């Protein structure tokens, strides 16, 4: 069972506050680029190169920005994302009962699409491509821009939220007509 917003909201807010108090605002989508770089480097070494001064760089300008993290992926932000997964897993084991059918395709999608779970996996994959392309262009995702940004009164956070909801509401209204 999901926490009521009157409890869940303040608790989630405290986590965002603790992150800023102790280290830095929460962000996730950058790590997709770092993992991409690590996978690339593992399969075809040479994406990143070490300069004479010991600093890491890349001939690809975008990977050059994250070359240091790609070279040493065991850093704060990557561990943070790994710990998120651990936390979510613990929480799901302790409180959640996700039915098997739900694990293949969420009820709301099963109700609205007649494509079965393979169709859901294709949609989920396509959604992932679009979400991360947009998140990297914007320079952050729902965590980094919307939550962390708006809590800091960052104008970019508001612009991001405006852009995201501008398309998310109509898209969901079109695709998810049936309720579940």
């Amino acid at each position, binding site marked *: 069972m999901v926490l009521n917003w009157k409890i869940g909201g303040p608790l989630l*807010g405290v986590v*965002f506050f603790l992150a800023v108090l102790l280290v830095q605002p929460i962000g996730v989508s950058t790590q997709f680029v770092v993992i991409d770089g690590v996978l690339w480097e593992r399969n075809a070494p040479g994406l990143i190169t070490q300069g004479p001064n010991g600093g890491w760089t890349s001939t690809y300008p975008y990977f050059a920005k994250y070359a240091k993290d790609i070279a040493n992926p065991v850093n704060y932000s990557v561990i943070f994302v790994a710990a998120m997964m651990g936390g979510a897993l613990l929480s799901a084991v302790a409180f959640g009962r996700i039915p098997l059918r739900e694990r293949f395709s969420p009820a709301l999608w099963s109700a609205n699409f007649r494509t079965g779970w393979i169709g859901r996996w294709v949609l989920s994959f396509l959604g992932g491509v679009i979400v991360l392309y947009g998140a990297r262009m*914007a*320079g952050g995702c729902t965590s980094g821009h919307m939550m962390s940004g708006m809590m800091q009164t960052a104008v970019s956070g508001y612009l991001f939220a405006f852009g995201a909801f501008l398309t998310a509401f109509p898209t969901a209204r079109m695709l*998810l007509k049936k309720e579940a």
Partner: protein
Amino acid sequence: MEIALAIGLGGLFGIMLERIGATDPNWIGRMLNLTNTHLMKTIFVAIGTASILMFGGQMLGVVEVGHMSVKEIHVGVLLGGAILGIGWAIAGYCPGTGVCAAATGRLDALFFIAGGLIGAGAYALSYPFWEEIGFLNGEKWTIGEIPGASYPAALPDLPITGDMLGIGIGIAFILIAILLPRRLVGKAAPVTDTKAEPAE
């Protein structure tokens, strides 16, 4: 020390995302098709609470202003946000909730992550184009001027400081959450519907 903090804070964040229902695409979908605003209320309260605590802590001198990290505002923020919004509604996941959902055993979330790696890689390769047409240039504005921070203010002549404004906005966000109707389209769900308002 930093690694211990990453494990502690990341773990707490993962637990909370799962507990508020953000790792469940059904709750994201109900929020985005406007049939149940419960998750939206949670997020409004969370942003408001975090804002009040952070700016309040800064005014009391217990929170380091230097820990703030404001992102640049540019055309790419709006366009990228709009692109993300489409995928968000299609998949029901955003980057953080997607990885957490995969960890809770949702198989479709694994495909979201695979797609996400492709999308992030595609952006990395197309980055020079967006850079060249000037979509990624901008300043790190905050709304008001925050004492101790060097961010330019979008509204520099406000009668109150940026941290007081942040607390005010935080309170406003919590009020919005309280006043927001349970659903924004269609007929109201019955009060006894546990899906509409979780009791826990």
